[in-house]
Structure formats: C-alpha cells, structure tokens
C-alpha cells in the first residue's frame, strides 16, 4: 500500500514539472517541496539549484554545488523527474545532470546535447529533449542515460506536451508551428500553425492542447492563446491579446486540468471554459520581474519565481489560490523553472547552514 501511494505521488509529480501531459488526477497527498532551477547569467556559470521544503517552509540554496562540490553549469533551464531521479537540463552547458532525487547526489551527466531546453518523459525508457539551436529533438535512453537518436523537426523546439501516443512540440524561437510526433514511431506526423512564437503549452482535462504564443520578442505580432483539438490536430480557437506590447509567458494548468494560469504583468487566471482572456491580473506584479510560475497540482498553490534585477539573487514567492500571500524567500540568480518533488531526506546532513534562507 505504501509503495502504491509512493508510485501515485511520483507519477503525479512528474506531471507537474513537465510541459505535458496526461490528464492530472484529482487527489494527492501534500508533501515534499519544490526544486528551483536558478538560471544565473549567460556564460557566467552561476546557475544553481534551490529547494523549497513544504515541511519546514524554508528554502535551501546552492544545493547542487554543495552536495556535488562543483558548479551546476551555465543556465539550468528546466527540471524533470522520473522515478527516483531528477533531470536538470543545463541549457548553455549542453548537458543534463542526472541526480538522485532524495539526496541530489550526481549519478551521471548526459552530454552532447545542443542547447537543450525541456525534457519530457515518454515512458520508463525514453524521453524527448527539445533544443533551442538545433532542428532536432534528442531522444534519451533513460536506462543508459545517453542520446539514442534524434527526431528531425526542421526547426528549433521548446515546450513539449504529451497525450496518448502523441507529443506536441512548440517551435518557439522565431516560429509559429506546433509539430506533432508519434511517440511510438518517433516520427513527425503533423504540424499545426499557431500564433507567433509558441512559448508554452498545457493539456486540459478535456484532452485539449492550449498553446500560449508570446508574439515574438520584437513585438511585431499580437500574442495569442490557441486551443487545439488533439484528436484532429485542428485549431479550435484563438484568444487574441489586445496589445502587441503584452508579453505573456509560462502557461500552466492546475491539478484538475480546469484552470489556466500564465504571466502577463502579474499572474493571470482563466477557466478553460472562458470565452475571453482575463482582463486583469489574478496576482499583481509588485516590484521585481515575475519570470516563471508553477501550480501545485494538489492544492493549486501558486509558486512564482521573481528574477528581481536579474543580476542578484531573486525570490520565490508563494500564494494560496485565494490568492493569499504566503511567503517570499531568496533564491539563486534568476530563479526559473520549478518542479514539485518528493521530500529530500538528507538536507540536514548535506547542506551547510549558510545555504538556508527563510
């Protein structure tokens, strides 16, 4: 029974931290915490890993280097979890650090990747990794922790969403397409034209794909939120943002697959049945720069990473879904992707006190 609960929790947490995926379940026990990838500054090598513990309400900074006695790398961009392992995708170092989830001890490093961005677990043996600067998805053999092949997309890739035997891959940088890959054959089977620069994607409880397009960095196009039928791979609806100057990002969905969240001058909230985009923010941006969000799949707590001035340590800000402010804690430099995880058991023995901050 204990193992069964553990397996259920693990599988739910995997759902939480990738841009996929299968429909989330309705119940889960609260526990564990959140791993935070602090990107650091480009080429400065000051990326780091933080962990927020639900039990102690404390944040632990600089964990990877404390535990493994070496820097994490240049731009740790995303974190995914499979089984007992956490996979930290380090973008500008071209690698994935594989660590034990409970101790953060490095197990191996997957190298040879070109500007990797996001890792999505296809099954127990296989994962896909998107790439900013290559036109292929890398296929990772999880057993050997190595690259087993590539899927040629003909364009760069960013977010990955999974449903059934399909993987949806967004062509963010300068693109306007979502590619559809058959996860059994590892072949591209379709492509869907969406708005400019599809940045993030989620799948709702009805199995539909939501694609947030930020309009491009030069603000030449209107951002839009596109809804796609994953059976027909047809575009169902486009929600157009009112101004080109808006720059929405980081689309997430709650544990029920019912409510969408994204960043656009604060945190916006939107039901999947809504006819229009939300007019105002659910949580206003108060100083700093909200950079990424994560939603607790169980209680819909909202975790916000605030990059501040992008050169000194940022913040992790937590809100209840009411939305009631809970806490604000210092992280590393440019806190980015967050991933819900199991409790890390060995923190007290492995982490020096000066890495602990409230």
């Amino acid at each position, binding site marked *: 029974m204990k193992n069964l609960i553990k397996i259920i929790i693990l599988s739910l947490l995997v759902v939480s931290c990738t841009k996929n995926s299968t429909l989330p379940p309705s119940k889960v026990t609260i526990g564990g915490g959140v791993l935070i990838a602090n990107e650091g500054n480009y080429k400065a090598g000051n990326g780091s890993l933080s962990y927020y513990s639900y039990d102690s309400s404390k944040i632990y900074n600089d964990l990877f280097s404390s535990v*493994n006695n*070496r820097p994490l790398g240049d731009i740790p961009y995303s974190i995914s979890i499979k089984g007992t392992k956490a996979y930290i995708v380090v973008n500008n170092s071209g690698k994935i650090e594989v660590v034990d989830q409970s101790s953060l001890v490095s197990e191996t490093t997957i*190298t040879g990747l070109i500007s990797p961005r996001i890792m999505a677990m296809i099954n127990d043996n296989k994962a896909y990794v998107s790439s900013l*600067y290559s036109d292929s998805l890398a296929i990772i053999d999880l057993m050997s922790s190595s690259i087993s092949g590539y899927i040629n997309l003909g364009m760069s890739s960013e977010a990955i969403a999974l449903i059934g035997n399909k993987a949806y891959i967004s062509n963010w940088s300068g693109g306007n397409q979502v590619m559809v890959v058959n996860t059994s054959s590892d072949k591209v089977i379709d492509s869907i034209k969406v708005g400019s620069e599809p940045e993030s994607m989620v799948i709702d409880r009805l199995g539909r794909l939501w694609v947030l397009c930020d309009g491009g*960095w030069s603000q030449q196009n209107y951002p839009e939120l596109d809804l796609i039928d994953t059976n027909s791979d047809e575009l169902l609806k486009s929600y157009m943002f009112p101004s080109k100057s808006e720059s929405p990002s980081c689309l997430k969905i709650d544990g029920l697959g019912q409510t969408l969240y994204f960043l656009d001058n604060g945190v916006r909230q939107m039901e999947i049945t809504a006819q229009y985009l939300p007019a105002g923010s659910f949580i206003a941006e108060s100083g700093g720069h909200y950079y990424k969000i994560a939603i607790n799949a169980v209680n819909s707590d909202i975790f916000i990473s605030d990059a501040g001035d992008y050169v000194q340590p940022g913040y992790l800000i937590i809100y209840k879904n009411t939305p009631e402010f809970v806490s604000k804690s210092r992280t590393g430099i440019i806190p980015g992707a967050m991933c819900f995880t199991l409790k890390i058991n060995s923190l007290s023995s492995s982490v020096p006190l000066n890495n602990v901050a409230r």
Partner: protein
Amino acid sequence: MSYLNDTIKISEVVISTNKSALDQAGYKRTSIDSMVLSRYSSSNLSDMLSENTNIFIKSYGMGGTATPAFRGTGAGHTLIDWNGININSPMLGQSDLSLLPVGLIDDVQIFFGGASLALNNGGIGGTINLETKPVWKKETLISLNSGVGSFSRYSELLKVKTGNERIQTVTKAFYQTAENDFRYLNNINGGEPIWQKRNNDQFRQRGLIQELYFQSGKNITSVNVWYQSSDRNLPATMLTQQQNSNERQFDESVRAIVKYDHFKGPGSFSFTGAWMMNRLNYYNQLASIDSKNLSENLTLKANYETLIGGFSNLKIALDEQSNVIISNNYEHNTRRNTATITASLIRNQNRFGTTILFREILDRKSLLLPDFSAGIQFRLIDDTEYFIKANISRNSKIPTMNDMYWFPGGNPGLKNEYSFMYEISYEMKQKISNPLNLKYDLTFFRYSIKDMIQWHLGEYSYWNADNIQSVTSSGMESSVSLDYVRSHFNASFKAAYSFTRARNGNSGVADDLSARKQLVYVPENQVNSSFRVGVGNIYTTLVLNFVGKRFTEIDNSKYLPCYMVNNFNTGIKFPVKNSSVDFNFSIDNLFNTTFQSIAYYPMPGRSYFIKILVQLIK
C-alpha cells in the same frame, strides 16, 4: 654596447600632441619605460599593462577580449588615445587591448583620473595615450622581430624608419597567429582534477602603420595611417559540454590622422583631422547569429596655446566629432555629433604649480553641464624633485551609441554619466649616489560616479539601458623604483601596490544585496614588481604579478581566488657596428600557476617564447 642601448633611440626630438597635458601641474601621469616596451614588442597592450601597471585588465586569455579598468571604474571609463585622438569604439565606448600590439607603439603615457581631461572627453578613470613618432635624424633603421612560442604562436614585426631632418617615413607591420590550444586543469568536474585542451581559441592579428612627417622650420605636418585586423575564434566556458558553437569574431580598424603644427613666437597652433573606422562582426553558427557592426568617426581638432609671462600656458581647444553607425543591431543607420571647447591655464613656477581647466560639451543639440578640473602642486625643497600634488575634477561621459540605439533596449533619452574625483599624491625622485637613483610615489584617490548606465531587464522582457547605478571608488597607489647603472652592469627594481575599494551605491531596489559591496572583477589588492639585471650584453628580467581576489557576484557571495604569476625573460645582444642582433627567450607563468581572470575561462600555464630581433641602422 650595453643593454641600455638595445632599444630604438627616441629621445632626440619629441613630437607631442599633448605638450601642455604632459606639463599639467598637480596631476598624476606615468610613462612606460622603453625597455618594457621592447620586452613586450611581440605582445599586446593587455599583457604589458597588466604586468607593469596598476590598471586592472579583465582578460579572456591570450588573443581574447581584454578591457582595462582604472581604480575601480569601468572599461568604458578608460580612454585609449592614439596621438591624442580617442580610438575607443563609439558603439561600445571601449577598446579591446588585445587588438593593440605593443610593437607598433613608440611610447605609452598613462593619465590618471582628472589628468585625462587634458586630452579628451569621458576618461573618468583615466586615459592611455599611445604615441607613434619619428626620429629626426638622417638615418635608416630597419628592424625585424620574429618570434615563435608555445601553443603554435608565431609573430613577426617589421619596422622601417628612414628620412632626414626634414622628411621622415615610418612603416611598421605586425603579424601574429596562435592555435592557443593550451592544456588546463579542469578542477570543476567534481572528481579528481583533469587536464583538458582548450578548443576553438585560435586567433590571427595583422597590423600596419604608415607615417609620413614633414618639417619646415618649426612647423610639422604629419600623416598617420593604422590598419589593424583580428580574426579569432571565441572559446566556450569550462562549463560547456555541447558541440562547438563556432563562435567567431572579426575586428577591423582603419585609423587615419592628418595633423599640422605651426609654431610662432610663444604660441602654437595645431589642426588635426582624423577618420576612424571600426568593424566588428560576430558570428555564432549554433545560435544563428550573424551580427555586423560598422562605425565611422570623424574628428576635427584645433588647438591654440601660448606662453603668458614666462610661467603660464594658456590652451584653447575645439573638438568636433561625428559618429555614424551601420549595424544590423540598430533600427536604422545612426549619426551623432558632439562639439567640445576646452580652455586650460597652467602655471608652473619653481615651487608652485597650478592648473585650471574648463570644458563645455555640446551633445547633438544639448549643452551639458560643464566639466572642470583644478590641480595644484608644491615642490617641497628648492631644486629637488619632491612634490605634493592634489587635484579635483568633474568629468562626464556621454552614453555610447549602443547604450542609446541598440535594438532592442537602447535608450536615446539617457543622461551622461559624471564623476567627481579627488586625488592627492606625493612624488619624489632622487639620485642617492652616482649610479643609484630612487623614485617613489604615493597617491590617494576617491571617485564618486553618478548616473552610471546599467543594462537591466525591462517591461517587455528584454534588456534596457538606464542611468541607475552609482559607484564610489577610493583607494591608494604606491610605487617605488631603484635604478643602478654602471657601464657594463645595470640593475633595476620596480614595485607597485594598489588598493581599490570600489563599492556599489544603493540602487533603490528593495533588499538590494549589492549595495555597498565591492564591484565584481575589481581586485582590492594588486601588486606588480620586476627585477632586471644587465651584465655586458646579457640581460635578465623577472616579473611578478599578484592580483587579489575578485568577486564574481554582485552580492559578493562568490569570488575568484587571488593569484600570483611570474614571468621570466632573458637575452643576449650582439652589436655589429651600428646594428645588432638580439636573441631573447621568455617563460610566462614560470611556476605554472592555475588561475582564471574571468570565471570559468582558464588561463594558460607555463609557456615559452623565443624571438630574434635584427636591427640595422645606416
């Protein structure tokens, strides 16, 4: 012939663009010893300055970008001049010292703080003036300097100087290439440190200077042209394990100066026209970046100076600059004009000296708040070289073209940065005995820099330039040198120490962790020393360079440890009539110290270099 004669003789006639600047009362200025210039003739300005001055050089390694910082100020606060004309890129507002070969330069003068106001705008930290000049003698000098060293490094330097007392022509050509595939100790891989080979770090540099000088009576007309190019690959940090990104940078500069000096009675006029072109192309195959940037700068200068009453020198200078930028990183081609008028009065008597300088800048259509500087010096005892000097200045720097027009993020509404600087120093020079001379100086300084431009992330998720930073930098510098010269034996010892406390102001950001913290990559402590001995035709030099710890994060939570690097140089010179052949051997990083100047960019360990200098004089 002793070792002292191994360099090109340059002392007969000094043609200076900055006569009054050199004589400023109350300011600190130093020159690089001609022997040091000779020793670094196959190197770039970055190596020479970092090992022989207190100027901190932030370097990505041999051939990599190297930028200077005076006394805790930024790279953009240091002006690099060539014969009094600013050669900093108008786009970046700074110079890459790795692109300036020492072998092409005849003299290097360093103007600290307020002293730089005598030359150009914007040298808040200071100015490094590179001089090229003729020797007004009827002779022909040909020198060929060939070198080969570790990491497949080759260099060639050819100089031809010929003419007479009326016409001189000078030609210098420089070529250098290196594979730069040195081994370094990777101590950040978690396990035992391992030796790895540096990849994608090759560079090739070419330089050519052609100068013509005409002298008629006291009047001199000169034409100087300098072509410089560099093609280099940019290596990744030690943390990168992905495929080679094929990052590459191509720099090319053409600089041309035409100058006429007219002397009449106690006064002199000088008219200068200069045209500079800087090209910087950056290519990153992996990221599909092909950045092309071209800037052109036209400078017109007119100076008038005259002696008043025997002790005073009045100088009025007009300066008009026009910049044009053609870049695929700007929305459109961009032009900027600035005009400057400077008036200075220097009074220099035996015991007292004073300098007063005012400057007004017209930036496009706006008059800026005037800059000024005032200095005083006092000779402690008649007929001795003991001085107390003090000066105060306000110096401003107009924003760079990138700060204003880079797309996206450039801010045309930026204000100019400005600084108040205070300096007091003691200098002495004394002959202790007939062959032994002592020099010593001690300087305290303080800078308060306001409205510093900083790029920060803005509303639409890209970086914007704004006047948001303030910095206070204070510290001290001290140097001592002892020279012992006999006919067949000479020795000299030089040592310099600097302490720099450069602190961020309060940015106004809540819980600002950078407030009152030391600036990143500014060492508090720095020591340079050298010991040189010459016996007959054999000479040996040992250089020590210590750099204290440098913080790499603005909250001072991480730092690079201090390091000490020793360089060794020895040679023997065979004189043949007026000509000579000089064999020189050097070892850099003698004790194979592992260090980084910039985090995760390894520097080479021990390396060797052999060069042969053949000099023919007829």
